[in-house]
Protein backbone atom coordinates (compact mmCIF):
# COMPACT_ATOMS: atom_id res chain seq x y z
CA UNK A 1 0.00 0.00 0.00
CA UNK A 2 1.24 3.45 -0.78
CA UNK A 3 0.90 5.97 1.95
CA UNK A 4 -0.22 9.35 0.73
CA UNK A 5 1.67 10.99 3.58
CA UNK A 6 4.95 9.74 2.22
CA UNK A 7 4.30 11.23 -1.22
CA UNK A 8 6.05 14.45 -2.10
CA UNK A 9 3.88 17.53 -2.39
CA UNK A 10 3.45 17.66 -6.13
CA UNK A 11 1.21 20.71 -6.43
CA UNK A 12 3.04 23.85 -7.44
CA UNK A 13 3.24 26.39 -4.64
CA UNK A 14 1.55 29.18 -6.60
CA UNK A 15 -1.35 26.85 -7.44
CA UNK A 16 -1.63 25.51 -3.90
CA UNK A 17 -1.85 29.13 -2.73
CA UNK A 18 -4.88 29.89 -4.92
CA UNK A 19 -8.08 30.17 -2.91
CA UNK A 20 -11.00 27.93 -3.82
CA UNK A 21 -13.71 29.93 -5.50
CA UNK A 22 -16.13 31.09 -2.80
CA UNK A 23 -18.92 30.28 -5.20
CA UNK A 24 -17.99 26.60 -5.21
CA UNK A 25 -18.38 26.29 -1.44
CA UNK A 26 -21.79 27.82 -1.56
CA UNK A 27 -22.72 25.69 -4.55
CA UNK A 28 -22.14 22.52 -2.53
CA UNK A 29 -24.57 23.80 0.08
CA UNK A 30 -27.23 24.64 -2.49
CA UNK A 31 -27.16 21.41 -4.48
CA UNK A 32 -27.84 19.45 -1.30
CA UNK A 33 -31.28 21.13 -1.04
CA UNK A 34 -34.47 20.64 -3.04
CA UNK A 35 -36.89 23.30 -4.28
CA UNK A 36 -34.42 26.15 -4.03
CA UNK A 37 -35.13 29.32 -5.97
CA UNK A 38 -31.70 30.36 -7.10
CA UNK A 39 -30.65 33.92 -7.74
CA UNK A 40 -27.11 32.58 -7.80
CA UNK A 41 -26.72 31.89 -11.46
CA UNK A 42 -24.35 33.89 -13.65
CA UNK A 43 -25.85 32.84 -16.95
CA UNK A 44 -28.97 33.75 -18.91
CA UNK A 45 -32.09 31.72 -18.17
CA UNK A 46 -33.02 31.90 -21.84
CA UNK A 47 -32.13 29.03 -24.09
CA UNK A 48 -29.93 29.99 -27.01
CA UNK A 49 -32.23 31.55 -29.65
CA UNK A 50 -33.51 28.83 -31.96
CA UNK A 51 -32.11 30.44 -35.12
CA UNK A 52 -28.61 30.10 -33.69
CA UNK A 53 -29.15 26.52 -32.58
CA UNK A 54 -30.64 25.62 -35.94
CA UNK A 55 -27.65 27.07 -37.79
CA UNK A 56 -25.35 25.00 -35.58
CA UNK A 57 -27.24 21.83 -36.42
CA UNK A 58 -27.05 22.71 -40.11
CA UNK A 59 -23.28 23.16 -39.85
CA UNK A 60 -23.04 19.66 -38.40
CA UNK A 61 -25.18 18.31 -41.22
CA UNK A 62 -22.76 19.81 -43.70
CA UNK A 63 -19.92 17.98 -41.95
CA UNK A 64 -18.32 21.07 -40.46
CA UNK A 65 -16.57 19.14 -37.70
CA UNK A 66 -12.89 19.84 -38.31
CA UNK A 67 -10.23 22.02 -36.72
CA UNK A 68 -10.22 25.66 -37.70
CA UNK A 69 -7.33 28.08 -38.06
CA UNK A 70 -5.71 28.68 -34.66
CA UNK A 71 -7.07 32.19 -34.80
CA UNK A 72 -10.57 30.92 -35.55
CA UNK A 73 -12.72 30.91 -38.70
CA UNK A 74 -11.83 33.90 -40.84
CA UNK A 75 -15.53 34.41 -41.62
CA UNK A 76 -16.22 34.74 -37.90
CA UNK A 77 -13.25 37.05 -37.31
CA UNK A 78 -14.47 39.27 -40.13
CA UNK A 79 -17.97 39.38 -38.65
CA UNK A 80 -16.54 40.07 -35.19
CA UNK A 81 -14.39 42.95 -36.45
CA UNK A 82 -17.33 44.47 -38.33
CA UNK A 83 -19.47 44.23 -35.22
CA UNK A 84 -16.79 45.73 -32.98
CA UNK A 85 -16.26 48.59 -35.43
CA UNK A 86 -19.97 49.32 -35.59
CA UNK A 87 -20.90 48.90 -31.93
CA UNK A 88 -17.69 49.83 -30.11
CA UNK A 89 -16.22 52.34 -32.54
CA UNK A 90 -12.81 50.71 -32.94
CA UNK A 91 -11.49 49.03 -36.10
CA UNK A 92 -9.43 45.85 -36.11
CA UNK A 93 -7.93 43.81 -38.93
CA UNK A 94 -9.58 40.37 -38.86
CA UNK A 95 -6.43 38.76 -40.29
CA UNK A 96 -4.04 40.07 -37.66
CA UNK A 97 -5.80 41.69 -34.76
CA UNK A 98 -8.46 39.19 -33.68
CA UNK A 99 -8.45 35.73 -32.13
CA UNK A 100 -11.39 33.47 -31.31
CA UNK A 101 -11.08 31.79 -27.90
CA UNK A 102 -12.87 29.34 -25.66
CA UNK A 103 -14.95 31.96 -23.87
CA UNK A 104 -13.60 35.22 -22.47
CA UNK A 105 -12.11 33.10 -19.68
CA UNK A 106 -9.52 31.67 -22.03
CA UNK A 107 -8.91 35.04 -23.68
CA UNK A 108 -8.18 36.58 -20.28
CA UNK A 109 -5.82 33.77 -19.35
CA UNK A 110 -4.03 34.10 -22.69
CA UNK A 111 -3.42 37.82 -22.51
CA UNK A 112 -2.26 37.63 -18.90
CA UNK A 113 0.16 34.81 -19.63
CA UNK A 114 1.30 36.54 -22.81
CA UNK A 115 2.36 39.77 -21.12
CA UNK A 116 3.13 39.05 -17.48
CA UNK A 117 6.39 38.06 -15.88
CA UNK A 118 7.06 37.14 -12.27
CA UNK A 119 6.65 40.18 -10.05
CA UNK A 120 4.68 42.30 -12.51
CA UNK A 121 1.62 43.96 -11.06
CA UNK A 122 -1.87 44.08 -12.51
CA UNK A 123 -4.32 46.61 -11.14
CA UNK A 124 -7.97 45.56 -11.22
CA UNK A 125 -11.11 46.54 -9.34
CA UNK A 126 -13.03 44.56 -6.72
CA UNK A 127 -15.70 43.25 -6.31
CA UNK A 128 -15.01 41.39 -9.52
CA UNK A 129 -15.49 38.14 -11.36
CA UNK A 130 -13.91 35.33 -9.36
CA UNK A 131 -11.19 34.46 -11.84
CA UNK A 132 -9.36 37.80 -12.11
CA UNK A 133 -6.97 37.61 -9.14
CA UNK A 134 -6.55 33.87 -9.65
CA UNK A 135 -5.59 34.22 -13.32
CA UNK A 136 -3.14 37.02 -12.49
CA UNK A 137 -1.56 34.81 -9.80
CA UNK A 138 -1.39 31.84 -12.16
CA UNK A 139 0.62 34.05 -14.52
CA UNK A 140 3.01 34.51 -11.56
CA UNK A 141 2.17 38.19 -11.29
CA UNK A 142 0.79 40.22 -8.40
CA UNK A 143 -2.92 41.13 -8.32
CA UNK A 144 -3.43 44.69 -7.01
CA UNK A 145 -7.08 45.27 -6.20
CA UNK A 146 -8.78 48.66 -6.00
CA UNK A 147 -11.92 48.44 -3.93
CA UNK A 148 -14.98 50.06 -5.46
CA UNK A 149 -17.77 51.24 -3.22
CA UNK A 150 -21.51 51.37 -3.00
CA UNK A 151 -21.31 55.15 -2.49
CA UNK A 152 -19.59 55.46 -5.87
CA UNK A 153 -22.04 52.96 -7.39
CA UNK A 154 -19.10 50.55 -7.71
CA UNK A 155 -17.50 52.54 -10.49
CA UNK A 156 -13.74 52.62 -10.74
CA UNK A 157 -12.47 55.95 -9.41
CA UNK A 158 -9.68 57.08 -11.75
CA UNK A 159 -7.89 58.82 -8.85
CA UNK A 160 -7.75 55.52 -6.94
CA UNK A 161 -6.42 53.83 -10.03
CA UNK A 162 -3.63 56.33 -10.40
CA UNK A 163 -2.67 55.88 -6.73
CA UNK A 164 -2.38 52.11 -7.22
CA UNK A 165 0.02 52.39 -10.15
CA UNK A 166 3.68 51.62 -9.36
CA UNK A 167 6.76 51.16 -11.55
CA UNK A 168 5.93 47.40 -11.58
CA UNK A 169 2.40 47.93 -12.92
CA UNK A 170 2.13 46.34 -16.32
CA UNK A 171 -1.57 46.29 -16.96
CA UNK A 172 -4.97 47.47 -15.81
CA UNK A 173 -7.88 45.04 -16.02
CA UNK A 174 -11.37 46.51 -16.12
CA UNK A 175 -14.82 44.97 -16.44
CA UNK A 176 -17.82 47.22 -17.10
CA UNK A 177 -20.72 46.50 -17.01
CA UNK A 178 -19.53 44.62 -13.98
CA UNK A 179 -20.14 41.21 -12.52
CA UNK A 180 -21.16 41.19 -9.62
CA UNK A 181 -22.24 44.81 -9.07
CA UNK A 182 -23.92 45.73 -12.38
CA UNK A 183 -21.91 48.98 -12.32
CA UNK A 184 -20.98 50.74 -15.54
CA UNK A 185 -18.68 53.63 -16.34
CA UNK A 186 -19.40 56.56 -18.62
CA UNK A 187 -17.48 58.49 -21.25
CA UNK A 188 -15.71 60.80 -18.80
CA UNK A 189 -14.54 57.95 -16.58
CA UNK A 190 -13.27 55.95 -19.55
CA UNK A 191 -11.46 59.02 -20.76
CA UNK A 192 -9.82 59.55 -17.35
CA UNK A 193 -8.73 55.91 -17.18
CA UNK A 194 -7.39 56.13 -20.73
CA UNK A 195 -5.34 59.20 -19.86
CA UNK A 196 -3.80 57.42 -16.87
CA UNK A 197 -2.95 54.44 -19.05
CA UNK A 198 -1.23 56.68 -21.58
CA UNK A 199 0.56 58.68 -18.90
CA UNK A 200 1.99 55.58 -17.24
CA UNK A 201 2.38 53.55 -20.43
CA UNK A 202 0.07 50.75 -19.24
CA UNK A 203 -1.68 47.99 -21.12
CA UNK A 204 -5.46 48.04 -20.59
CA UNK A 205 -7.35 44.76 -20.68
CA UNK A 206 -11.06 45.44 -20.97
CA UNK A 207 -13.54 42.61 -20.40
CA UNK A 208 -16.74 43.79 -22.10
CA UNK A 209 -18.69 40.54 -21.94
CA UNK A 210 -21.79 42.32 -20.57
CA UNK A 211 -21.63 45.34 -22.87
CA UNK A 212 -24.82 44.55 -24.83
CA UNK A 213 -26.66 44.31 -21.53
CA UNK A 214 -26.42 48.03 -20.83
CA UNK A 215 -29.66 49.70 -19.81
CA UNK A 216 -28.69 53.34 -20.01
CA UNK A 217 -26.64 55.06 -22.65
CA UNK A 218 -24.01 52.81 -24.17
CA UNK A 219 -20.62 54.43 -24.71
CA UNK A 220 -17.83 53.33 -27.07
CA UNK A 221 -15.08 51.05 -25.79
CA UNK A 222 -12.09 52.45 -23.95
CA UNK A 223 -10.08 50.99 -26.87
CA UNK A 224 -11.62 53.71 -29.08
CA UNK A 225 -10.20 56.62 -27.07
CA UNK A 226 -7.20 58.54 -28.43
CA UNK A 227 -3.93 56.70 -27.99
CA UNK A 228 -5.67 53.58 -26.65
CA UNK A 229 -5.99 51.15 -29.54
CA UNK A 230 -2.31 50.25 -29.43
CA UNK A 231 -2.37 49.65 -25.70
CA UNK A 232 -5.73 47.95 -25.23
CA UNK A 233 -6.80 44.35 -25.54
CA UNK A 234 -10.56 44.15 -25.97
CA UNK A 235 -12.18 40.95 -24.68
CA UNK A 236 -15.69 39.94 -25.56
CA UNK A 237 -17.82 36.90 -26.29
CA UNK A 238 -21.23 35.46 -26.96
CA UNK A 239 -22.21 33.87 -23.65
CA UNK A 240 -24.24 36.61 -22.04
CA UNK A 241 -25.76 38.69 -24.84
CA UNK A 242 -26.80 35.70 -26.95
CA UNK A 243 -27.43 33.21 -24.13
CA UNK A 244 -24.67 30.96 -25.45
CA UNK A 245 -22.69 30.10 -22.30
CA UNK A 246 -22.34 26.42 -23.19
CA UNK A 247 -20.96 27.15 -26.66
CA UNK A 248 -17.84 28.64 -25.02
CA UNK A 249 -16.96 31.24 -27.64
CA UNK A 250 -15.13 34.46 -26.82
CA UNK A 251 -12.66 36.66 -28.65
CA UNK A 252 -9.89 39.16 -28.20
CA UNK A 253 -9.10 42.13 -30.43
CA UNK A 254 -5.91 44.10 -30.00
CA UNK A 255 -2.56 45.09 -31.43
CA UNK A 256 -1.02 42.47 -33.72
CA UNK A 257 1.88 41.65 -31.38
CA UNK A 258 -0.51 40.99 -28.48
CA UNK A 259 -2.80 38.79 -30.58
CA UNK A 260 0.20 36.96 -32.01
CA UNK A 261 1.54 36.25 -28.50
CA UNK A 262 -1.88 35.05 -27.36
CA UNK A 263 -2.13 32.88 -30.45
CA UNK A 264 1.16 31.15 -29.57
CA UNK A 265 -0.17 29.99 -26.22
CA UNK A 266 -3.58 29.16 -27.67
CA UNK A 267 -2.14 27.03 -30.50
CA UNK A 268 -0.10 24.91 -28.11
CA UNK A 269 -2.72 24.56 -25.39
CA UNK A 270 -6.16 24.78 -27.01
CA UNK A 271 -5.41 24.57 -30.75
CA UNK A 272 -8.69 26.23 -31.65
CA UNK A 273 -12.17 26.88 -30.31
CA UNK A 274 -14.77 24.30 -31.30
CA UNK A 275 -16.00 24.80 -34.84
CA UNK A 276 -19.62 24.17 -33.81
CA UNK A 277 -19.40 27.04 -31.37
CA UNK A 278 -17.76 29.24 -33.97
CA UNK A 279 -20.48 28.51 -36.52
CA UNK A 280 -23.10 29.35 -33.90
CA UNK A 281 -21.33 32.60 -33.06
CA UNK A 282 -21.27 33.58 -36.72
CA UNK A 283 -25.02 33.08 -36.94
CA UNK A 284 -25.48 35.13 -33.76
CA UNK A 285 -23.69 38.07 -35.38
CA UNK A 286 -25.47 37.67 -38.70
CA UNK A 287 -29.03 37.24 -37.53
CA UNK A 288 -29.17 37.29 -33.72
CA UNK A 289 -29.60 40.98 -33.06
CA UNK A 290 -33.36 41.02 -32.58
CA UNK A 291 -33.21 38.07 -30.19
CA UNK A 292 -30.45 39.78 -28.24
CA UNK A 293 -32.40 43.00 -28.01
CA UNK A 294 -35.55 41.29 -26.83
CA UNK A 295 -33.58 39.53 -24.06
CA UNK A 296 -32.08 42.87 -23.04
CA UNK A 297 -35.57 44.40 -22.78
CA UNK A 298 -36.61 41.53 -20.57
CA UNK A 299 -33.59 41.87 -18.25
CA UNK A 300 -34.32 45.56 -17.89
CA UNK A 301 -37.85 44.85 -16.72
CA UNK A 302 -36.56 42.28 -14.24
CA UNK A 303 -33.95 44.68 -12.95
CA UNK A 304 -36.60 47.29 -12.29
CA UNK A 305 -38.66 44.82 -10.26
CA UNK A 306 -35.87 43.27 -8.20
CA UNK A 307 -34.20 46.59 -7.31
CA UNK A 308 -37.44 48.23 -6.24
CA UNK A 309 -38.33 45.24 -4.11
CA UNK A 310 -34.94 45.17 -2.37
CA UNK A 311 -35.20 48.85 -1.53
CA UNK A 312 -38.79 48.36 -0.32
CA UNK A 313 -37.60 45.55 1.95
CA UNK A 314 -34.93 47.85 3.38
CA UNK A 315 -31.96 46.29 1.61
CA UNK A 316 -30.32 49.30 0.04
CA UNK A 317 -29.59 48.60 -3.60
CA UNK A 318 -28.28 50.91 -6.34
CA UNK A 319 -29.86 50.65 -9.77
CA UNK A 320 -27.44 48.53 -11.83
CA UNK A 321 -26.72 50.05 -15.22
CA UNK A 322 -25.72 46.83 -16.87
CA UNK A 323 -25.23 43.03 -16.69
CA UNK A 324 -27.92 41.02 -14.84
CA UNK A 325 -26.96 41.31 -11.20
CA UNK A 326 -28.31 43.32 -8.30
CA UNK A 327 -25.87 43.80 -5.44
CA UNK A 328 -27.87 44.85 -2.38
CA UNK A 329 -26.32 45.94 0.92
CA UNK A 330 -27.66 43.67 3.68
CA UNK A 331 -25.95 45.39 6.62
CA UNK A 332 -29.28 46.89 7.79
CA UNK A 333 -30.25 43.37 8.89
CA UNK A 334 -27.27 43.14 11.24
CA UNK A 335 -26.00 40.14 9.30
CA UNK A 336 -22.93 39.83 7.13
CA UNK A 337 -23.46 38.88 3.51
CA UNK A 338 -22.25 35.37 4.25
CA UNK A 339 -24.58 34.93 7.26
CA UNK A 340 -27.43 36.44 5.31
CA UNK A 341 -26.95 34.09 2.37
CA UNK A 342 -26.55 31.02 4.56
CA UNK A 343 -29.56 31.69 6.78
CA UNK A 344 -31.73 32.79 3.85
CA UNK A 345 -30.95 29.53 2.11
CA UNK A 346 -31.75 27.46 5.19
CA UNK A 347 -34.91 29.30 6.22
CA UNK A 348 -36.44 30.33 2.92
CA UNK A 349 -34.67 28.21 0.31
CA UNK A 350 -33.52 31.19 -1.71
CA UNK A 351 -29.94 31.07 -2.96
CA UNK A 352 -27.95 34.28 -3.35
CA UNK A 353 -24.17 34.51 -3.54
CA UNK A 354 -22.33 36.09 -0.57
CA UNK A 355 -20.32 39.21 -1.44
CA UNK A 356 -16.96 37.78 -0.27
CA UNK A 357 -17.00 35.42 -3.26
CA UNK A 358 -16.16 38.58 -5.26
CA UNK A 359 -14.10 40.59 -2.78
CA UNK A 360 -13.17 40.23 0.85
CA UNK A 361 -14.32 43.83 1.25
CA UNK A 362 -17.83 43.04 0.04
CA UNK A 363 -19.21 41.21 3.05
CA UNK A 364 -22.04 43.71 3.45
CA UNK A 365 -23.44 42.55 0.13
CA UNK A 366 -24.96 39.60 -1.67
CA UNK A 367 -25.15 39.11 -5.42
CA UNK A 368 -28.60 38.37 -6.81
CA UNK A 369 -28.85 37.42 -10.45
CA UNK A 370 -31.98 38.57 -12.23
CA UNK A 371 -31.38 36.20 -15.11
CA UNK A 372 -34.36 34.24 -13.75
CA UNK A 373 -38.06 34.45 -14.57
CA UNK A 374 -40.16 37.30 -13.18
CA UNK A 375 -42.23 34.72 -11.31
CA UNK A 376 -39.12 33.49 -9.54
CA UNK A 377 -37.99 37.05 -8.82
CA UNK A 378 -41.36 37.83 -7.30
CA UNK A 379 -41.45 34.67 -5.20
CA UNK A 380 -37.83 35.00 -4.11
CA UNK A 381 -38.19 38.63 -3.07
CA UNK A 382 -41.37 37.80 -1.12
CA UNK A 383 -39.44 35.14 0.75
CA UNK A 384 -36.54 37.53 1.35
CA UNK A 385 -39.01 40.08 2.68
CA UNK A 386 -40.41 37.51 5.13
CA UNK A 387 -36.89 36.51 6.13
CA UNK A 388 -35.82 40.11 6.80
CA UNK A 389 -39.04 40.84 8.73
CA UNK A 390 -38.36 37.78 10.88
CA UNK A 391 -34.89 39.06 11.76
CA UNK A 392 -36.10 42.36 13.11
CA UNK A 393 -39.27 41.03 14.77
Amino acid at each position, binding site marked *: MTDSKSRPDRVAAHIAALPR*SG*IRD*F*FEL*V*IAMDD*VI*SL*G*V*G*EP*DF*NTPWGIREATIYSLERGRTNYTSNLGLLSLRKAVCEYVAKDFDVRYDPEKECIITVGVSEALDLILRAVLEAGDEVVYHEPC*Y*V*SYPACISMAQAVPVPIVTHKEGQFRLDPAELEKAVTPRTKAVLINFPN*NPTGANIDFAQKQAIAEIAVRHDLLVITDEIYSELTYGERCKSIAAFPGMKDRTVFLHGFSKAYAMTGFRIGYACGPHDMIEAMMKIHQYSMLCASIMGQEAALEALRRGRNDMESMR*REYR*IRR*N*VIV*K*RFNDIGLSCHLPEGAFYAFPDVSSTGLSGTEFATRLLQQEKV*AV*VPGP*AFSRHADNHVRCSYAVS*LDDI*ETATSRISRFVAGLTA
Partner: protein
Amino acid sequence: MNTDDMDQLLSQLRRNARLPASQLAERLMMSQEAVEKLIAECEAEGIIRGYYPLINEDKCADKKVRAIIEVTVRPERDLGFDRIAGNLAKFNEVTDVTLVSGSYDLQLIVVGDSLQDVAGFVSTKLAPIDGVQSTRTHFVLMKYKEAGFQLEDNEEYDRLKITP
Protein backbone atom coordinates in the same frame (compact mmCIF):
# COMPACT_ATOMS: atom_id res chain seq x y z
CA MET B 1 -48.29 59.97 -24.46
CA ASN B 2 -44.67 58.76 -24.28
CA THR B 3 -44.33 56.21 -27.08
CA ASP B 4 -41.42 54.42 -25.38
CA ASP B 5 -43.53 53.89 -22.24
CA MET B 6 -46.42 52.77 -24.39
CA ASP B 7 -44.29 50.25 -26.31
CA GLN B 8 -43.05 48.78 -23.06
CA LEU B 9 -46.54 48.67 -21.59
CA LEU B 10 -47.94 46.95 -24.67
CA SER B 11 -45.15 44.41 -24.78
CA GLN B 12 -45.90 43.48 -21.15
CA LEU B 13 -49.63 43.23 -21.81
CA ARG B 14 -49.08 41.15 -24.94
CA ARG B 15 -47.47 38.54 -22.72
CA ASN B 16 -49.85 38.82 -19.81
CA ALA B 17 -52.89 41.03 -20.18
CA ARG B 18 -53.97 40.25 -16.61
CA LEU B 19 -51.00 41.88 -14.91
CA PRO B 20 -52.28 44.31 -12.30
CA ALA B 21 -51.23 47.94 -12.58
CA SER B 22 -49.12 47.59 -9.42
CA GLN B 23 -46.92 44.94 -11.04
CA LEU B 24 -46.75 46.81 -14.34
CA ALA B 25 -45.63 49.89 -12.41
CA GLU B 26 -42.71 47.99 -10.86
CA ARG B 27 -41.64 46.57 -14.18
CA LEU B 28 -41.78 49.85 -16.06
CA MET B 29 -40.43 51.97 -13.19
CA MET B 30 -43.55 54.14 -13.26
CA SER B 31 -46.13 55.00 -10.64
CA GLN B 32 -49.26 52.90 -10.49
CA GLU B 33 -51.36 55.97 -11.33
CA ALA B 34 -49.25 56.66 -14.43
CA VAL B 35 -49.74 53.07 -15.60
CA GLU B 36 -53.49 53.23 -15.07
CA LYS B 37 -53.66 56.50 -16.97
CA LEU B 38 -51.60 55.10 -19.83
CA ILE B 39 -53.82 52.02 -20.12
CA ALA B 40 -56.93 54.20 -20.08
CA GLU B 41 -55.48 56.34 -22.87
CA CYS B 42 -54.63 53.27 -24.95
CA GLU B 43 -58.17 52.01 -24.52
CA ALA B 44 -59.75 55.39 -25.28
CA GLU B 45 -57.73 55.79 -28.47
CA GLY B 46 -58.54 52.27 -29.62
CA ILE B 47 -54.93 51.12 -29.44
CA ILE B 48 -55.98 48.41 -27.01
CA ARG B 49 -59.20 46.93 -28.41
CA GLY B 50 -59.70 44.14 -25.91
CA TYR B 51 -58.20 41.41 -23.75
CA TYR B 52 -58.72 37.71 -24.28
CA PRO B 53 -57.29 34.45 -22.91
CA LEU B 54 -54.94 32.29 -24.91
CA ILE B 55 -56.59 28.88 -24.97
CA ASN B 56 -55.18 25.59 -26.12
CA GLU B 57 -58.30 24.48 -28.01
CA ASP B 58 -57.12 20.89 -28.14
CA LYS B 59 -57.64 20.65 -24.40
CA CYS B 60 -61.15 22.09 -24.39
CA ALA B 61 -64.07 19.74 -23.83
CA ASP B 62 -66.20 21.65 -26.34
CA LYS B 63 -64.18 21.02 -29.49
CA LYS B 64 -64.83 23.48 -32.28
CA VAL B 65 -63.70 23.08 -35.85
CA ARG B 66 -61.60 25.83 -37.35
CA ALA B 67 -60.70 26.54 -40.93
CA ILE B 68 -58.45 28.97 -42.68
CA ILE B 69 -60.28 30.21 -45.79
CA GLU B 70 -58.48 31.86 -48.66
CA VAL B 71 -60.84 34.19 -50.47
CA THR B 72 -60.28 35.99 -53.74
CA VAL B 73 -62.38 39.09 -54.09
CA ARG B 74 -63.16 41.51 -56.91
CA PRO B 75 -62.15 44.91 -55.54
CA GLU B 76 -64.63 47.75 -55.91
CA ARG B 77 -64.23 51.18 -57.39
CA ASP B 78 -63.27 53.71 -54.66
CA LEU B 79 -63.66 51.11 -51.90
CA GLY B 80 -61.06 48.48 -52.82
CA PHE B 81 -61.48 45.53 -50.47
CA ASP B 82 -62.79 47.48 -47.51
CA ARG B 83 -66.56 47.07 -47.91
CA ILE B 84 -66.49 43.34 -48.61
CA ALA B 85 -63.91 42.70 -45.88
CA GLY B 86 -66.03 44.69 -43.44
CA ASN B 87 -69.13 42.70 -44.35
CA LEU B 88 -67.32 39.36 -44.01
CA ALA B 89 -66.16 40.46 -40.58
CA LYS B 90 -69.77 40.88 -39.48
CA PHE B 91 -70.45 37.12 -39.55
CA ASN B 92 -70.15 35.63 -36.06
CA GLU B 93 -68.65 32.50 -37.61
CA VAL B 94 -65.72 34.55 -38.89
CA THR B 95 -63.15 35.25 -36.13
CA ASP B 96 -60.33 36.79 -38.17
CA VAL B 97 -60.18 38.73 -41.44
CA THR B 98 -56.85 39.74 -42.93
CA LEU B 99 -56.03 41.32 -46.29
CA VAL B 100 -52.89 39.72 -47.68
CA SER B 101 -50.65 40.01 -50.71
CA GLY B 102 -50.14 37.06 -53.05
CA SER B 103 -52.37 34.59 -54.83
CA TYR B 104 -55.53 35.41 -52.88
CA ASP B 105 -56.85 38.51 -51.14
CA LEU B 106 -58.53 37.85 -47.82
CA GLN B 107 -57.62 35.25 -45.25
CA LEU B 108 -60.47 34.33 -42.92
CA ILE B 109 -60.62 32.08 -39.92
CA VAL B 110 -64.01 30.47 -39.57
CA VAL B 111 -65.20 28.52 -36.54
CA GLY B 112 -68.01 25.98 -36.46
CA ASP B 113 -69.30 22.96 -34.55
CA SER B 114 -68.39 20.42 -37.23
CA LEU B 115 -66.78 20.05 -40.65
CA GLN B 116 -70.26 20.16 -42.20
CA ASP B 117 -71.10 23.28 -40.28
CA VAL B 118 -68.03 25.14 -41.58
CA ALA B 119 -68.44 23.77 -45.11
CA GLY B 120 -72.09 24.80 -45.07
CA PHE B 121 -71.19 28.33 -44.02
CA VAL B 122 -68.68 28.62 -46.84
CA SER B 123 -70.99 27.29 -49.53
CA THR B 124 -74.21 28.99 -48.49
CA LYS B 125 -73.03 32.26 -46.97
CA LEU B 126 -69.52 33.11 -48.06
CA ALA B 127 -69.15 31.91 -51.65
CA PRO B 128 -72.44 33.42 -52.95
CA ILE B 129 -71.55 36.94 -51.82
CA ASP B 130 -71.35 39.32 -54.73
CA GLY B 131 -67.69 40.10 -55.34
CA VAL B 132 -66.36 36.87 -53.82
CA GLN B 133 -64.74 35.09 -56.74
CA SER B 134 -63.36 31.94 -55.15
CA THR B 135 -62.70 30.26 -51.80
CA ARG B 136 -60.31 27.56 -50.65
CA THR B 137 -60.89 25.94 -47.30
CA HIS B 138 -58.10 24.52 -45.13
CA PHE B 139 -59.27 22.82 -41.96
CA VAL B 140 -56.98 23.33 -38.97
CA LEU B 141 -55.57 20.04 -37.68
CA MET B 142 -53.26 21.19 -34.90
CA LYS B 143 -52.05 24.50 -33.55
CA TYR B 144 -48.50 24.69 -32.26
CA LYS B 145 -47.93 28.35 -31.55
CA GLU B 146 -50.18 31.35 -31.12
CA ALA B 147 -49.45 35.00 -30.35
CA GLY B 148 -45.83 34.15 -29.56
CA PHE B 149 -46.64 31.33 -27.13
CA GLN B 150 -45.86 27.70 -27.83
CA LEU B 151 -48.93 25.71 -26.88
CA GLU B 152 -46.93 22.65 -25.89
CA ASP B 153 -43.50 23.37 -24.42
CA ASN B 154 -41.04 20.79 -25.67
CA GLU B 155 -37.80 22.06 -24.17
CA GLU B 156 -36.09 20.84 -21.08
CA TYR B 157 -33.67 23.07 -19.36
CA ASP B 158 -31.45 22.14 -16.48
CA ARG B 159 -29.17 24.87 -15.24
CA LEU B 160 -26.62 24.73 -12.49
CA LYS B 161 -27.99 26.49 -9.43
CA ILE B 162 -24.91 28.57 -8.70
CA THR B 163 -22.36 29.76 -11.25
CA PRO B 164 -19.85 32.59 -11.21
